């Protein structure tokens, strides 16, 4: 059952990712990227990471992709003549980096991970639930959690200071 779901979601992710680069229309590309990200959220769900799946949807699909589409429409990038390269050596660079990434993955798999700290054995029952995460945020990670609010406040001050029209 889980395997079927995994292959289904993965297939959707790969198909959408392929369509992102093969679409001549940038808006369609962005829409297919949303599809890819949704499929990735599905993969997170299958890994028992419910919270990350939801956050992934809210942040990437919700906020970031809306920003993408907004920029595309603002700059009127809708029509892109097929086959043109926007950046020099774009295609070669893309293929090269893709191959490099593949090699990295192969290396990692052949090393069998080899990383310290990877959990062994079955996951704890409540793994990935928001409740566990919330508990950690307000215990172990209480200080960083509160410190983040200072950081965000500083950023908000910055937006006002630098962005406000002088009165």
């Amino acid at each position, binding site marked *: 059952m889980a395997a079927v779901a995994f292959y289904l979601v993965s297939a959707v992710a790969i198909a959408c990712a392929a369509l992102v680069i093969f679409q001549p229309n940038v808006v369609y590309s962005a829409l297919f990227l949303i599809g890819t990200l949704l499929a990735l959220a599905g993969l997170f769900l299958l890994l028992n990471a419910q919270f990350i799946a939801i956050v992934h949807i809210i942040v990437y699909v919700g906020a970031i992709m809306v920003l993408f589409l907004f920029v595309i429409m603002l700059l009127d990038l809708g029509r892109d003549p097929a086959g043109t390269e926007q950046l020099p050596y774009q295609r070669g660079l893309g293929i090269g980096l893709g191959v490099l990434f593949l090699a990295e993955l192969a290396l990692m798999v052949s090393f069998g991970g080899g990383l310290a*700290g990877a959990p062994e054995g079955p996951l704890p029952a409540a793994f990935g639930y928001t409740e566990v995460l919330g508990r950690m945020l307000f*215990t172990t*990670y209480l*200080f*960083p959690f509160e*410190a983040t609010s*200072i*950081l965000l406040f500083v950023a908000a001050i910055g937006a006002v*200071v*630098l962005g406000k029209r002088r009165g």
Partner: protein
Amino acid sequence: MNVAAINISLGGIGPLLILSATALVVLAIDCFWPSERRSHLAYVTVAGCLVALGATWRLWGAQEAVFGRMIIVDNYSTFFTGIFIVGTTITTLLSIGYTSRMGIDRAEYYALLLFATVGMIMMAQGLNLITIFLGLETLSISLYILAGIQRQRAASIEASLKYFLLGAFSSAFFLYGVALTYGATGSLDLEHITRAVGETTFASKPLLLIGVGLMLIGFGFKVATVPFHVWTPDVYEGAPTSVTAFMSVGAKAAGFGAFVRVFSISLQPLSPDWTHLLWLLAVATMVVGNVMAIAQTNIKRLLAYSSIAHAGYVVVAMVAASALGTSSVLFYLLVYTFMNLGAFGVVLVLGRQDEEVLAIDDFAGLGRRAPALAAAMALFMFALAGIPPTAGFVGKFYIFSAAVQGGFVGLAVIGVLASLVSVYYYFRVVVVMYFMEPAGEIPLAPRSAPATVALVIAAAATLALGLFPSPFITAASRSLVAVLF
């Protein structure tokens, strides 16, 4: 896990809380009782700093990890907290008068100075790379904004944008390094990392080294070491001088606070791998900083290259990687805070409405027109050059003797030669002030009593730390007796 297990200690983060609260109070006062002149906000800021300094004083001797090992209260972090708060206090005093002349007299200015200090304290007190990163970002974002707060001047905006883009880039390097270190060791806790580094397997060693290297880039950028220094002259020149003064001492001290804790203490088992890298970094920084400073005609750019060179001296002490080396880092950063703030302070109080005196040649004749100011500037220049009996000499002496004791004689020789070069450009300022005829009138700002107080404090401390260094050196070495893990 219950709440008691994470050991909440509000006293331990007292200075941090007091400064945050002061920042909020400053913003609230300006919001509810707005007024044309805002020097009262500066006094509120200074008052908050003094209370926080008192709270820091009470922490001396404490030794515990609190907040689920996110924060560590030990003499090392307390010493650094003291340096930060003193730096902020002096900067705020210097700002009074200057800010209204430059049109940056806003509540946000003071609030951001305080929040930047909060970020610095997080970096010094961080026992976990998450805390250190959050501190780094709080500090950096405050500084990006402060650099660009003088919006009517294009140079200020340019400095802010350059600093932001390069700073964000270096933060990404740092964060990536943290992530890879986590991948290799399985923890972000500095003590666990130390333990894990001792037992790294062959497979995860490259990952760890890449992670550590990326963190080195992040820190190297923050403290402005060559080759991660290119932003420094432009940002220092473009930012309002009070902000430049603040970031030249505060951000550097905070960067080294975290740098030394992560590298010299937590990654100590890995030191055979990074010592040579730091050796190269130290040499490049000292040589490039000092040589480039010779050609500068603008005092802020000169001080920018000089601050790069000084970062090099501190890295020399890190290479020594001994108790003496680390305590000389602490002492040197304390000394540097006073002498560098003093030098910038003199630049700050010169100049008229919305116009600054920044060309070194404009200092001509200052010895006659403003003898006290010129004497103070000469003192700070001597101190930066490392001439006895100023504090700069003692600081450099400790750093280079730590290097020699650690067996890095060549490095110490290069350091001494580099600081000989620096004597040339520091003395040039003195010569211009006393022995050159002014081409025109030097504009002198109306006297600002708080700025005078700040300059007197800086000058007195620069002399006192040079004449009676022993209590402070003792304190610096006691900061290390038991760096708690």
